[in-house]
């Protein structure tokens, strides 16, 4: 089972994150920014990626000793430079959170009206990006697992991965593929000690959600901080299980 959010009362302490080396993509907005802040507050050594240099530097300035990396996970040529900076500055990677994603052009369009180039771009960011970055970091993650530090990859999925919502075709298809890829990675790398989790964070009040559904009732939406806390809890619990297995 790799698609789960722990119920709120089950959150273990995040104290287990102190000193862990964590990379978050899409780290300057919405859920990603909350993840970066909470992981940093929990004592993790956090690197984060985003496209806009100004926003990256602003968040890095806000969080002492965090590592801000400017890059676009949708660009093949950016992947190894991102991996180099993260593993270089942190000395390795224990947790990778593939959070960056795009909707494609808004207002959202029916698949029949979706330009092929838009579809490709959504897949490049939401599916190929996580694949390439995971591949580039797989050696570092496996080294961490062999070292007994644990190794976890979180792929931020969506309800749109499972439900067929009209006008969410490119995004939904990309998330469905990400979700399935995550499960296959998990099956293939379990023996290497690397766990993969596909996580649906729920409908959140984020800039992305506002772009997709500008008329949504904000009161019905989750705070990104809450979803971030759930993911942090899930990562902590997964690492704790890995450490327990290591000690046994």
């Amino acid at each position, binding site marked *: 089972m790799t698609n789960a959010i722990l119920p709120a009362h089950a959150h273990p302490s995040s104290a287990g994150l102190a000193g862990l080396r964590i990379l978050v993509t899409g780290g300057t907005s919405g859920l990603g920014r909350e993840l970066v802040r909470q992981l940093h507050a929990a004592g993790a050594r956090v690197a984060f990626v985003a496209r806009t240099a100004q926003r990256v530097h602003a968040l890095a300035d806000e969080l002492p000793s965090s590592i801000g990396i400017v890059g676009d996970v949708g660009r093949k040529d950016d992947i190894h*430079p991102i991996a180099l900076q993260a*593993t270089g*500055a942190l*000395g390795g990677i224990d947790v990778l959170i593939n959070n960056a994603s795009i909707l494609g052009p808004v207002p959202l369009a029916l698949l029949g009206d979706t330009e092929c180039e838009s579809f490709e771009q959504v897949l490049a960011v939401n599916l190929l990006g996580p694949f390439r970055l995971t591949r580039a970091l*797989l050696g*570092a993650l496996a080294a961490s697992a062999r070292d007994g530090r644990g190794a976890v990859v979180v792929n931020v999925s969506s309800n749109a991965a499972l439900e067929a919502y009209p006008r969410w075709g490119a995004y939904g298809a990309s998330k469905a593929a990400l979700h399935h890829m995550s499960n296959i990675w998990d099956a293939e790398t379990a023996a290497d000690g690397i766990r993969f989790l596909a996580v649906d964070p729920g409908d959140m009040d984020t800039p992305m959600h506002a772009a997709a559904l500008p008329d949504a009732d904000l009161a019905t939406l989750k705070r990104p901080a809450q979803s971030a806390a759930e993911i942090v809890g899930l990562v902590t619990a997964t690492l704790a299980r890995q450490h327990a297995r290591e000690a046994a």
Partner: protein
Amino acid sequence: MNAARLPVQRPADARLLVVDEDGGLVHAQRAFFIDFLAPGDLLVANDAATLPASLAGIHVTSGAPIEVRLAARRSLDAHDVRHFDAVVFGAGDWRTRTEDRPLPPALAPGDRLQLGPLSAWIEELLGHPRLVSLRFGDAPDAVWAGLAAHGKPIQYAHLADRLRLWDVWTPIAGAPAAFEPPSAGFAIDWSALRRLRERGIGFATLTHAAGISSTGDPALDRRLPLDEPYRIPAATAQAIRRTRARGGRVVAVGTTVVRALEHAAARHGSVPAGEGLATQRLGPATPLRIVDAVLSGTHEPGTSHHELLRAFIDDATLAHVDAALEQGGYRTHEFGDSVLVARSAAARAMRGDGRAADWVRAAQQRLMSA
């Protein structure tokens, strides 16, 4: 031997020359190298990712174009990225053989180098017009960002195209520490790790800052390898202890693994976990305390890699190996073919265990029946 010209890490036709303890030679396909290992053996690889260590820039004092190749660092500490030893070339690029590259302008301590977004200063000349120690002026994360944005992998004139960073990272590459790829590791992929597990063969890694393999300058090449820092994880130290206690063989993937493990063992008597700085050269006089066999690229006589094989086998056997590689048309260099060399029975006897193995015959039987 011919140089491999295409940067394919695991060409389907990659070959392997196996050299057993008695100097016997067997030609095989490298894809089946795991069949030459036995349950209880331990494969140890170098998981260093390769830095984009080639930095084009300007010697500010003279205005002359230069290429700086970072070549050595004192530790693997992620924050210790300000000080490097480096080889400096004059104008030109990788398409010119290093042997034909001009010297840089006369360099002096205090000279500033502008290397893309990175500023560096020469701290010291190291006894050769091309070899310097330098210091970057930026904070560690800015150095990493600058290397990522501007650095290129060290290139080879014998290759048809420019290498990209993904060409020089082995599948198991972790933290960036190597200046040129620990290329024996190209033979290992995730499928190979699965096969090792299935056959009850252990796998462990260390991180060793593999230095540059050659500079094109004979005087400088005689000083290679430069000092190389390494880190041995606790799990690896433990796996080595267990393997040796149970009579298994420790098989090094690449000469850098031999250098790290034997350096640690020479200092401590066994292999402890932790960091070290490998300063020794390996050759015929080096007792091998830990490593029973090495999987390596093929190397031409006179290189430090070739010299290292003399610790495993006597000169007569090595001459046979060189002749077999030459006659067999094996490809050399980073993306070439491989050898699997077992420490000779004589070298083994120096350690006193004298265990005779019929692992080559067993592998051949496995391959025949497959």
